[in-house]
């Protein structure tokens, strides 16, 4: 899948579902510290990744996803 499409889907999810301001969605943004995503939110991020990109996410792998850019890369490597 094209990286651009991944960015669009993830950013749309974060703005619509998580109500995060679009201007905060820069690649270097830290998910927890900058975007205010907490442990329970990762459960819902796993759901959206599985639904939108069709692969199974493990919580262990997600531990290494620190920034938004990490998330795009993580999905791009698998989708």
């Amino acid at each position, binding site marked *: 899948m094209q990286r651009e499409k991944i960015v669009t889907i993830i950013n749309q999810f974060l703005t619509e*579902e*998580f*109500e995060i301001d679009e201007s905060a969605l820069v690649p270097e943004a830290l998910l927890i510290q900058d975007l205010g995503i*907490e442990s*329970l*939110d990762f*459960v*819902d991020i*796993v*759901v959206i990744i*599985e*639904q939108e990109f069709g692969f*199974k*996410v493990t919580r262990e792998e997600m531990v290494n996803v620190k920034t938004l850019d990490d998330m795009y890369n993580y999905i791009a490597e698998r989708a």
Partner: protein
Amino acid sequence: MKRVVISGIGIYSTIGTDIETVTKSLYAGKSGIGIDAGRKDYGFRSSLSGIIERPNLKGLLSRRERVGLPEQGEYAYVATMEALKNGSLDMDYLASNEVGILYGNDSSSIPVIEAIDIMREKHDTSLIGSGSIFQSMNSTISMNLSVIFKLKGINLTISGACASSSHAIGLAYILISGGFQDMIICGGGQEINAESMGSFDGLAAFSTYENEPHTASRPFDRTRNGLVPSGGAATLIVESLDSALKRGANILGEIKGYGFSSNGSHLSVPNVEGPKVSLLRALKTAGMKPSEIDYINAHATSTPLGDLNEGKALLEVFGDCNTPVSSTKSMTGHEMWMGGASEVIYSLLMMQHSFIAPNINFNSPDDELRTLNVIAETREQKLDTILSNSFGFGGTNSTLIISKYRK
């Protein structure tokens, strides 16, 4: 023993989603009953239901606060916001004082069904999402509201079937009168969706007067043929008199007595003796005679045997006093887990505005209840003390007596 008062109320019901509208509906004898046509697709015997819109909480609560709330939790949040406002309480007060919550709830069907659907279809629990567990537990309302409102006192859900929230108020009364807590947010929430009502419909317990929804719930009337399921949420601020006076609260009523009992007989068939014990215990706690009760808000749900047996219990205790009785379920339908709390609020509003809300759709009584003084039309009357009954499956009974506050 400390004196215990009610210092705030809030409601989200089928006859109004705020105190002012509900007061007008009670006075006008307005019905909140309609048809939920989708129930026929599920094979319901009766598609009658209380009709209510879900509130939109986007903008009021954060996403994290919203995802854990099921339908009845949303109603409870709105009712509690109104009760806090009505009670002149803000987040600063809740943050700096030990406030508890005892809320009545006894089911949460939709999140359970949705999670099971995902497991059956996808065979993958990671697709259930983060909100489901917090929505599906019976304690969902007390759990969510305690976090949203930063409560630090007792934190429990009371599950006692259709007497849940009446018991919640009664138990708060005990905890506060014993000096264990100064303030407890009490109430009850009730989901109203078809999925939660199917098994109850399967008992053929619901009214079948589908052609006339507004007249379908007819407690004490001899033509009644079942209850109408309904829902929403009701919240009361229950507080020690000392605490209320200290903060200059507007005192809406004083809880004088709590009675309870268990029939110890049958899952669904009510009796006369159990409710009678509850009535007598409430009077004894209050130190009152039956003649001191000005109005009885009956549990009467519009089922043939339930209303008859409650009526008999009332006549055995209040037969010499001709005490006025009405069942507001004639208008609201049966609000089940919420009913104990909402009916205390309805009765408080009557006391505040000096009227008795009518038992609508009442035309003629059972032969055995001819002498029960059922109020069929709105009556202007000063009320100093009210009594509210709530009974539930398994034979759990609760009775509350509330008076106007006097120094």
